[in-house]
Every structure is written in C-alpha cells, then in structure tokens.
C-alpha cells in the first residue's frame, strides 16, 4: 500500500490565479460551467469569482473574500482554492448506498462512476458542498485526487499547475509537519490568526486536503463543526424506537379497550361484515 497522500493548501500564498481550476478542467476533460452568456456564466459581481462554487464540472473552485473597512485601513483580499477534502472519516463515503464511493490505496476518496446511481445521498452528507450531479452523466462527480495520475506517479494536475505552491501535494504525514512549521513562522511574523483547518483529527478525523487559514472557517465558507452523519443514527433509532413503542401501545390500547361509547349522533349504523368465521 502506498502512503496516505494529501494536499496542504496554504491560503496565504494563493494568488487566486485559478490555474488549479483550469488544470483540473483540462486534465479531467471537463466542460466549462454552463450559463446564459453564450453558454457560459455571466459576471457574478462577487469579487473575481465567476463560477460561484464547486460543481460537477468545477472540481476545484477558487474563492475570493474581500475584507476592507470603509477607510481601507483594514484591507485584505483572501483567496482559497477549494476542493474535496478527502476526509479521513468521509461522510459521503459513509452514506453512499451503492458503494460507489471508495477509498483508494492512496487514502483518497474516489467516486466510481459506473456504480453510482445518482441518489444524491452523498451530496446531502458532504459537509463542504463538494459533490454535484453531472448534467449529462447523471452521476455524482467530484475531485478524484487525480487517481489516474497518482497511479502513474504523477502529481495531481492542480498541484502541478499551482504557480505559487499554495497547493502542496505529498505524503500526509510530511505535509502536516511542514504545515505546522509554516503556522509557527506566520505566528512569529505577527500573523497571529494563522491556523490549520483539518490537519489534526478534530474535523472528521482529519482532512487529507487541509488548509492554512487566517480567519475563521466560516469566512472561507467552511463549517467549523462538520458532522459524521452516522453519529445521528443511533439517536434516531433510540427516539424512533421509543416513539414507536409509545405509539404502538397507544394504538393497541385503543383497540383493546372494551368500554363502549355511545354511537355518535346521526352516525349511520350498519352491521359489520366480513368478520372471519
């Protein structure tokens, strides 16, 4: 088995060039985001982001967050290249009822197209809004972590294309070490808000694609507390079981009770038929 691999994305050096997004498109032969502008999207007005979100054709998506005070004394423009996190405990994989979502030998999460029947349970489970259904194939689609490239010992296309090495690819263990060093450095140079998101096991047991951020996760459109879907299941069973028992007993009791009540006024009476012999 090869070592678990991951991405360490250092958002402080992301220049929002979207090379990763384009490289992913190209390698995976994906069409552009559809829209009304001669088949392409219109200007979103949301900073320099015109594709809006991860989608069935954009497996990478670069986010732009403008943070300016009215007097521009506070001025920051955050950029972050979003992708499937290849969660250590992967909600999508956990719920998938067809087994189409697999963990590969590289410890990445992979959707095996031919098995998927498009039920979309994985979409509801993924805490990061990663998975979408393809409009022509009608199956769930997301970043494959360039499984085909990994198999050939190649760096994933997006990491390869990233000009600033904001996306670093490598063995997960090594990346986590490196990331810790970078956070320490930032802290030292006064970027007190720098921290790692998903590098330890607090978030879904760890994210193989983890991030260095300088603001709270929500600023980047990331949940601070994503859930493992299965954790709710025992509770649901418990509450449902209790309710079922109480309801069932009530129903049984209603039919067991021998007290006769006067027939309602005006209700027609009819002999009951079909009584078993």
């Amino acid at each position, binding site marked *: 088995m090869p070592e*678990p691999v991951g991405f360490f994305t250092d958002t402080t050096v992301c220049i929002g060039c979207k090379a990763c997004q384009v490289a992913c498109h190209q390698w995976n032969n994906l069409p552009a985001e559809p829209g009304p502008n001669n088949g392409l999207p219109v200007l979103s007005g949301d900073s320099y982001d015109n594709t809006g*979100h991860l989608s069935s054709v954009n497996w990478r998506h670069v986010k732009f967050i403008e943070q300016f005070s009215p007097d521009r004394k506070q001025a920051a423009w955050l950029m972050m290249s979003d992708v499937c996190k290849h969660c250590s405990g*992967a909600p999508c*994989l956990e*719920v998938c009822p*067809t*087994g189409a979502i*697999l*963990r*590969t*030998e590289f*410890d990445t999460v*992979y959707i095996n197209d031919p*098995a*998927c*029947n498009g039920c979309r*349970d994985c979409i*509801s489970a993924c*805490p*990061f809004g990663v998975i979408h259904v393809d409009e022509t*194939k*009608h199956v769930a689609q997301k970043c*494959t972590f360039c*499984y085909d490239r990994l198999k*050939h010992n190649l760096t994933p296309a997006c990491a390869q294309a990233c000009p600033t090495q904001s996306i670093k690819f490598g063995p997960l263990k090594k990346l986590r070490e490196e990331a810790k060093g970078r956070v320490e450095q930032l802290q030292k140079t006064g970027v007190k808000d720098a921290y790692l998101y998903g590098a330890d*096991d607090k978030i879904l*047991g760890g994210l*193989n694609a983890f991030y260095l951020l300088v603001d709270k996760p929500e600023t980047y459109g990331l*949940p*601070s507390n994503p859930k*493992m*879907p*299965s954790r*709710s*299941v*025992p509770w*649901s*069973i*418990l*509450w449902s079981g*209790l*309710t079922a028992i109480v*309801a*069932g007993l*009530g*129903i*049984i009791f*209603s*039919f067991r*009770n021998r007290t*006769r*009540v006067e027939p*309602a006024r005006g*209700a*027609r009476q009819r002999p*009951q038929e*079909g*009584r*078993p*012999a």
Partner: protein
Amino acid sequence: MNVFVADPDWGWWIILYFYLGGIAAGAYFIATLIDLFGRVEDRELARPGYWIAFPLIALCGLFLTVDLGRPERFWHMLFRSEVVHEAIREGWPKSGWGTFLHAPFAKYWSPMSVGSWGLLVFGACSGLSFLGSLRSNGFLARLLRYSIFGKIIALIGCVLGFFVASYTGALLTATNQPLWSDNTWIAPLFLISSASTGMAALILINGLRGVDPSGLAHRLMRAETWCIFLELVVFAIFWITLTPFIRVILSTWQGLLLLVGVSMFGLLLPLALHWLPGHAASRLVASSVLVLIGGFVLRYALLREDEALLTKGPAIAVPAVDYERPPLISHFSPEDGRPPGQPGADPMNRSPETAPRSKVFQGD
C-alpha cells in the same frame, strides 16, 4: 448549522415518497397492530390499511427510481454492481454464484442503504398482505392473513412499517444539511406522523366504505387522538432541539410553514376537533383530512426548508452555537474515527478500474 453544503435536490418525487410512503407504512403497521392485537370484529377496519399500503409503497418505489440520476441502476442499492457484473461475466445465474453471493450489500449505519432493503422487504410483506386482504375471507386471506404464516408476515411487516415510517427521517438527519442534521427528532416525528396520517387514511376509507361509523369513531378516533397528541409532543421536542436556529429558520416562509402549517393543520385543529364534545362524523372526516394535509405540509416544508436555508446561504447570520451531538454509540460506523490508512466504511473496496480521462494514458 452548516450552510456551506450542496443541495441534494430532493424534490417532488422525494416529498411524495416521504408522504405517501409514510401513509403506507402507517396504515400498514396500524392494520397489523389491529390484526395482531385488536379485537376480531375490528379486523375489518384494518383491511383498507393493506389495500393502500402495497399500492402506495409500490408507487413510492417507482418515485424513488425515477428520482435517481440513473434509474436503471436502482438495484445498485442492493447489490454491489461491480460484483454482479463480475458474476455475470462468470456466467451468472447459470454459474458464478460464488461471486454473486458477495454481491448483496448494505451498510447498517447508512439509513439509505438499510432503507432500501427495508423498503424491499416491507414491499414484499405489504404485497402479501395486500393479496390476503383483497377478500375478507377465502384461501388467500386465510393463508396470508390469519395463518401463522400470515401472522409472521404481519409481524415482520409491522416492524418494517415502523422502520419505513421513520428511516426517512433518519435519512435526513444523517446528513450535513442545515436543520435536517441539526437535531435527531425527525425520524420519530416522521414515524408518528406516519401513524397519524395512516390512521387518518384508514378513517377516511372506512368512512367512505361506511364501515361501522360508531365503532370507527370510537376506536380509530381514540387511536388517532393518541397519535396526534404524541405527534404534538414530538413536534414540540423537535422545535426545542432547534432553539438556537429558530430565528434563522423562521426567516424563511418554508420554516414558517413548517412551524405554523404543521402545528395548526396537522396537530392543533385536528386535536381540537377530536376533543370537542360529541362525535360528529363530519368532524372526524374533517380532522382526518386536516391530518393528511398536515402530514404533507410536514414533508414538504421540511424538505424545502433545506433549499431555502441554502439559498440564503452564508448571508444568514448563522449562530455560533452548533448542535453538539455526542455520539450515543461511539464509532457506530467504521468510518467514524478511521485513522488515515486504515479501512473504513467500505472494507470491501476494490481499486476502481479508472477509465483514463486524458489522452496521455490511452493505450498504456
């Protein structure tokens, strides 16, 4: 509340499934409860439960299939498609059974996965019961309803009825969607709502048939009162667990509908009608209709609220408080707490044979 997720786009097919499937399951388990525990003379009241359970659940199966992106692959939920294909390559069903035996597939922690099997078996039970209830007497009725075999079917079906009624709620909860995953009371809510709507359906059909209105009014109504009351309690708990998010939820019309529509039409008005002195059949009919409407509104609003919250997206001031759910059973699924490199939810994984996506690898 996580508003950064994608919308699974569970629309009309699913709303109808949740609703009609709930009625079917409710009607079925009520019917079996009557059959199993009720008085002999009440069995006639139960028959319509079987009549509607099977057609509705069959219809639901259709809806679910249609809703799939790839309907022709509906069976992938039950059998590992790759294994089946492998077995077929080996000549299944003539041979290749050894491989095929590995094909059936379920994840006990995944409501959808277990649900598919549950639905299948429930469908079978309800189908048999349906046949057994076509006539009140006769061979089929004896065999499929009154015999020990029939009782076993009813017992299994009853349990599965409760299951089918509630797993859809667990399905919504076992996600990361806003509201759905923010409490664990949707499953019991759906369950009890199934009971009340199933009962309402029974009352109406029996009413239409003109079966013993007085007995009907008497016993069915008492059961119905109980169910509605219980639903009110569960509904209240449901909202209490959502306290941190109430402002956000009620800022959408779907959220308002969920609170007001369900409590008014589905719960308070029917209860009032029940609790008013006297037993006007018309009131019973009215209350049942209201309950059926309420049950629909519940599914509709709950499913649509997700979309509404997501459309509002990060723009809504999401409260920092998050719904903490300490696991009842830790590591319920093998995926939960899986260390990197270890097998997780799907140990049966085999490396997918990826079709090369780029020209570079073609031919190697």
